[in-house]
């Protein structure tokens, strides 16, 4: 901690505080003159707030905050705050970078998307509040803070999905998301209660100790763990808790689909990593969660990829693709060997994949936002011939899709390879084979979209008149990041491995 001796510990929460302050500031700005609030000002404020949070997170990460100092071993060095209710370590900062990057891209992209929207300030404010929640999830170190943070993510998300109030699909998606989400919150809370009964604690370290000391209520603990697993699986949209995802993503405004499918998923995963690896790592004898995740992972990627093949709506294809990627990342838990040692770990691979996925998936959904902005339609056929009119955006989309498929045109190739390598060297050859086969299947539906963009003839009346700047900037940045993650992948590995060691070391 010597690097930040000049700063008090609470400043480690800087990213979350910056997001929260921006969310409140947006409401204040809007209150000055609700009728005439400038959308440029609102976008600018949100983007600035997001960039400050991102900058702080990157600074802390590179400065070594929450990492073991020289001579210390991995779990040491984490900053406990509020009596251990929150913890800032390399993992929480790593995921904060993902969440804030996505939030900035989404804020940029929303500028034109919201041109006729009557509640712009509220929209941005909700996005930033949800981002605050996600950042808090990454730092949650107690079941109470975890639950509150998850709710802080969920409640704004429900409203955001339904924010196109005049659009039937959006309202329906919001309601569906809310109902399923409320149920899963209840299950999650019940699971927490059972774990509390079994161990007598809610704080993660205390629960870990209680499990290590042995608890007489193992069956209660087991049931609690299963329920918590259900809550996490809902958040990351893993089969069989995925069925809300295609509907919610399809109905939601596309930037919000990008936000939920990238950032919210990352937040769900960080909770899963911390709770299962760190807290329930010693409870494998009670409930073998590794095997449970093994089944969920394979089923998720397979069901999602084959479902995506049958879709005709581009947003639904990408929704299923995002479910499939949840399956790939779940390999990190499914192939977990009990500890993180060696230079390449499966946990690190999962985190690295989430990092790359944050950019390529957000970019792909933002392209859909662009298409919705142009009102070209929603099916693959409606995308025919877009490449001729908007070559730059379509080239970026091609990069996103091929990178999602794992071709070496973007960082997705390395992160998938990292997953595969760690899986196979960890002795899970069959899981690796499932990953490879699923990636091949996914190539079919990704190629289908690419083909529609470039090789088909456009409908006669297709005429794009406007090229929205904010969306283009967001897509360009996401594409650049996706491509540059090939030469720069070493940095991602480095920090993903440090992050993995903080919980699994």
């Amino acid at each position, binding site marked *: 901690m010597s690097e930040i001796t000049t700063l008090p510990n609470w400043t480690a929460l800087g990213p979350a505080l910056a997001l929260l302050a921006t969310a409140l500031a947006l409401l204040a700005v809007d209150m000055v003159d609700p009728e005439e609030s400038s959308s440029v000002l609102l976008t600018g404020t949100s983007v600035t707030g997001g960039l400050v949070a991102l900058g702080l997170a990157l600074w802390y990460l590179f400065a070594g905050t929450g990492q073991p100092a020289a001579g210390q071993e991995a779990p040491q060095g984490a900053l406990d705050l509020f009596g251990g209710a929150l913890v800032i370590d390399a993992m929480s900062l790593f995921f904060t970078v993902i969440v804030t990057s996505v939030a900035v891209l989404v804020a940029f992209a929303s500028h034109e998307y919201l041109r006729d929207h009557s509640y712009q300030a509220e929209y941005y404010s909700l996005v930033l509040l949800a981002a605050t929640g996600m950042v808090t999830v990454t730092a949650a170190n107690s079941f109470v803070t975890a639950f509150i943070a998850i709710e802080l993510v969920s409640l704004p998300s429900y409203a955001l999905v339904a924010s196109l109030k005049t659009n039937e699909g959006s309202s329906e998606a919001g309601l569906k998301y809310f109902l399923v989400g409320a149920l899963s919150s209840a299950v999650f809370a019940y699971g927490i209660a059972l774990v509390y009964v079994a161990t007598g604690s809610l704080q993660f370290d205390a629960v870990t100790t209680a499990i290590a000391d042995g608890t007489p209520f193992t069956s209660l603990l087991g049931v609690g763990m299963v329920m918590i697993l259900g809550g996490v699986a809902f958040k990351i949209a893993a089969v069989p808790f995925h069925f809300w995802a295609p509907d919610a993503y399809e109905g939601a405004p596309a930037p919000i689909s990008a936000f939920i499918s990238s950032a919210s998923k990352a937040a769900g995963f960080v909770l899963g990593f911390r709770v299962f690896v760190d807290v329930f790592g010693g409870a494998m004898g009670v409930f073998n969660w590794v095997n449970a995740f093994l089944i969920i992972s394979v089923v998720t990627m397979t069901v999602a990829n084959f479902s995506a093949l049958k879709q005709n709506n581009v947003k639904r294809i990408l929704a299923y693709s995002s479910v499939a990627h949840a399956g790939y990342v779940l390999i990190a838990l499914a192939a977990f060997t009990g500890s993180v040692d060696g230079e390449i770990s499966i946990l690190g691979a999962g985190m690295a994949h989430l990092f790359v996925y944050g950019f390529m998936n957000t970019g792909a959904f933002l392209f859909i936002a662009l298409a919705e902005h142009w009102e070209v339609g929603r099916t693959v056929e409606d995308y025919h011939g877009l490449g*001729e009119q908007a070559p730059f955006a379509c080239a970026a989309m091609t990069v996103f899709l091929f990178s999602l498929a794992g071709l*070496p045109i973007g960082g997705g190739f390395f992160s998938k390879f990292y997953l595969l390598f760690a899986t196979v060297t960890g002795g899970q050859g069959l899981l690796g084979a499932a990953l490879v086969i699923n990636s091949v299947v996914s190539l*079919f539906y990704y190629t289908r979209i690419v*083909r529609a963009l470039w*090789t088909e003839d456009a409908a006669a009346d297709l005429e794009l008149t406007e090229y929205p700047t904010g969306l283009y900037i967001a897509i360009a940045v996401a594409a650049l990041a996706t491509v540059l993650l090939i030469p720069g992948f*070493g940095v991602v590995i480095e920090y993903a491995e440090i992050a993995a060691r903080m919980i699994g070391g």
Partner: protein
Amino acid sequence: MLIELLLAATFLSALWVFVASDETAPKLAAWLSLVPLGLSLYMWTQFDAAGNGLLAGSEIAFETQIDWFQFGQYTLQYHVGVDGVSFPLVVLVTVLTTLAIISSWTPIDERQSQFYGLMLLIEMALLGVFTSLDFFLWFIFWEAVLIPMYFLIAVWGGPRRKYAGAKFLLYTNLGSLVMFVGLFMLVLGLGDSLTQLSLPAIAQGLQAGELSRPVFGLAGADLRAVAFLLLFLGFAVKVPVVPFHTWLPDAHVQAPSPVSVILAGVLLKMGTYALLRFNFTMLADVATSSPAAEIIAAVGVVSVIYGAMLALAQRDLKRIVAYSSISSMGYVIVGLVAFTPHGMSGATFQMVSHGLISGLLFMSVGVLYNATHTRMVGDMGGLADKMPLTAWIFVAGSFAYMGLPLMSGFVAEVLIFIGAFDSTVVAGAPVFTAIAMFGIVIVAGYLLWAMQRAIFGPFELETDYDIEPAPVHDVAPLAVLLGLIILLGIQPDLVYEAIQDAIGPVLELNSVFGGELR
């Protein structure tokens, strides 16, 4: 430095052409493509490699080696350089791209800036494939070739272009995947001794060490054999070897002619180049063992004969040339597996020679098609009267394909036959060689038949187009290619010396493994 300059210049040219207007793009791309061409020719004068780049004791020309990032125990590197095997192919890429770009001026009439941008992009990727010496770098370029090629076929191709493009992409990607798995079995098998993934490190590791660590329950010789098989299958799709060839006729026939030139001239060589580098250099012990050697030789011979038979059955000039490429690539396999100085070097020479000859034939078919709007042998006749220069160059190219002396095809095939005949590795080598030589007869059969029908005799044409002599910018690339074919036919040592120098160590390595070298 020169290789970085080559890659960067090509990449920046591609970007420039992408943002240029459709009117200026064709000329601009041609001018810009002279930069890599000039650079590669300059590099030829400075070329000072010795030995095989993958094996110990070699001098790699224009080498750069920089650490890229750490992946577990492995240091990934930016590692490029060329030796006698790869450098002729680098020059071939730059020559063919410039000529293909010029020959696109007539047929490509829509979305020009994207077309020429992709042509330059694919040139960069191909240069990367032939110069990379680190596995990951190589693989990234290897895959990067597919994407521009997919678009070139699927956007500018013939009526069934979408099907052909998708088939090409999925087929070759599947091949890459199988190959990738095969290589990683070897890497994992090498265990802790391997600390970098550069191709020389892997090759020398395989040469020195046992595969001590079991992978999927396989170790030692079994692991080598399985990995060899996976690599071979992966590259066989690219070459292509019968029965993995079915993507090729679709892709070739649907692709616009200049794209076919790149596809046949260079993309197929990626497969044989990789076979030479991986299967026949890294895993030479498996390739020379029995019955692997006999099986590979048989596969090569089947490709030669079956490809030629398929060509015999076609009416479409482009299909004829496409199928005959399968046949010619079969010769390369036969030559490589012989493990004799002339066999292997001749096979490598054939890669260059076939690149030029098939480029010439596809290009001249393209020029004929521009004028007649048909490629069917029965639909046209007597073109020699109407477009004499094009017709005669097509005839000359066909003779080069048949192996007329003083042309590069003759040199390549004679070397392959001599080498294959002498092979001590393949049992019954003379029989295989004799059957393969029969392929030449079939080639002569279908090419003479096609020429007689389409070029000579009284003029007739089914389509309603006025036939005029082709414009200069269409014929000039043909003339240049013909000139190069004759030059290499008269003076093969221009490239053959470098090739032999790089092949020699592979053969010495082979004798280490117990094969007798004569």
